């Protein structure tokens, strides 16, 4: 895990470059800082098993969710 920050830095630089998004050293450092905040949260969300959650059809956020069918 010691090289995780380096891997994060590589992910940022390679990820942005692969999309054609430019960033200088300063920006890359700050984007890396953002990744240090968001990265663990994103990983946690991805690890959260949502396979049994049936998405709401026709999501209407102004109303409560429809009753789940048994």
């Amino acid at each position, binding site marked *: 895990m010691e090289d995780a920050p380096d891997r994060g830095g590589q992910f940022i630089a390679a*990820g942005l470059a692969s999309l*054609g*998004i430019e960033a200088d050293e300063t*920006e890359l450092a700050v984007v890396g800082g953002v990744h240090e905040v968001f990265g663990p949260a994103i990983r946690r969300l991805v690890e959260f098993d949502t396979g049994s*959650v*049936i*998405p709401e059809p026709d*999501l209407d956020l*102004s109303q409560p*969710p429809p009753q789940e069918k048994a």
Partner: protein
Amino acid sequence: MRPIDLSLRGQAAAIAAGDADPSALLDEALARIEERNPALNAIVETFPERSREMLASAPDGPLRGVPVVIKDEWPLPWRAQRFGSAEMLTPTVPAESGPFRALRDAGAVIVGVGNMEELGAGSTGAISVYGPARNPWDPERCPGGSSSGPAASVSARLVGGAVGADGLGSVRYPAAYCGLTGLKPTFARSAMDGHHAADTTTTIVSGPLCLDAADCRLLSSVLFGESLGEGVASGLRIGVVRDVPSEDVDPEVGEACEGAIDLLRAETAGTIREVALPGLEEATLAAVLIANSDGLGEATPERLNRLNPEISLINRAVLKYRMLIPSVAVSHAHRIRTLTRRRLAAVFEDVDVLAWPTVPAPAPPLEAPIVELPSGTETADRANVRGGALANLTGTPAISVPVGLSSAGLPIGLQLGAAWGRDELLLDAAEAVERANGRRWVDARPPLADAEPAAADGC
């Protein structure tokens, strides 16, 4: 009392009764802005001629002749919104937004544009292309974001009411920091058209920031396009969640909110019950991710490569980082939204309102927007979103009500949340809180608003 110091409804009533001259009130508001705004930077632009034109053609509506402020998030027919930023990803143009039309048709007079956090991307108001707005209770402190200027304007009595927007707590945080009542309406219930993200957002709503709940009811009625009925909260079933938003808070905040919840129970002859709402942490993460990905369709490498260098480094970085959010994470976030909505709907079968502190600590310094919590030092943004994001994720309404002052003289806010469409109940409950504490906190004035008018006032 001078008309400008009356509540929003007081100003409207005084004009309707012929006890106040709306032209004089407009002049008074402009003079008040000139006098107090330099210390606050709450209002970034006034347009006296436009305001006078609005007044001259104001219909006989519920806010006829009453000056109000609107956040820099909404276009006006004579001014494109800047979103607190040197540039937005998509160009904006002057236009009639829904909130503008609602205010105009109610007879209100827009007297200025309120400052806001750059790109709406924070809860403190510390970053803005105009420089930050300042908190009237202590100008060295954050006013809250992203509706920083609207909140500071009302708190400093520049106007009686203001329109903000709330995508992840952006009405409620500044309401709490500035000692105001601020409502985040049920999703899609308040005017939203004309917002640059109106067609893509699933979290943002327009909402009022006012001195008290009755003013919020009046301004909400205007923004909703329907009269919101007034009731008396009785037998209120108050739910408390023993989790991070109510537990990991500054002790003074915790004590004030616990006391206010007890008073609310007594005032309404209600009950308090602990309820379980599992998965709050994941729900917060999901809300942040969804809010950051809703508008990604407007982002292209070309646009990101020519971002205005005047945009803050941190927000340029966030804009670019959003492109790297994996789609699987967004997919999970949407399923967590569904799960959370179902869990919350079940909770609201057993309670009428959920109560916890709006923000876990009073307004932090602008120079260092961090807060000290029992769990340690945290950025205010990360701490605040834990209590604010649930309503935006689920679409439910929530309101922040002032319930105290810290030992440093900074406001403390209690948040009440309710089920979809029960905005009126929240206003009733907020009024019950006011009655229970003798209106002590909604009538409290920041030192800056207690100052004697300058000699040149009104000239």
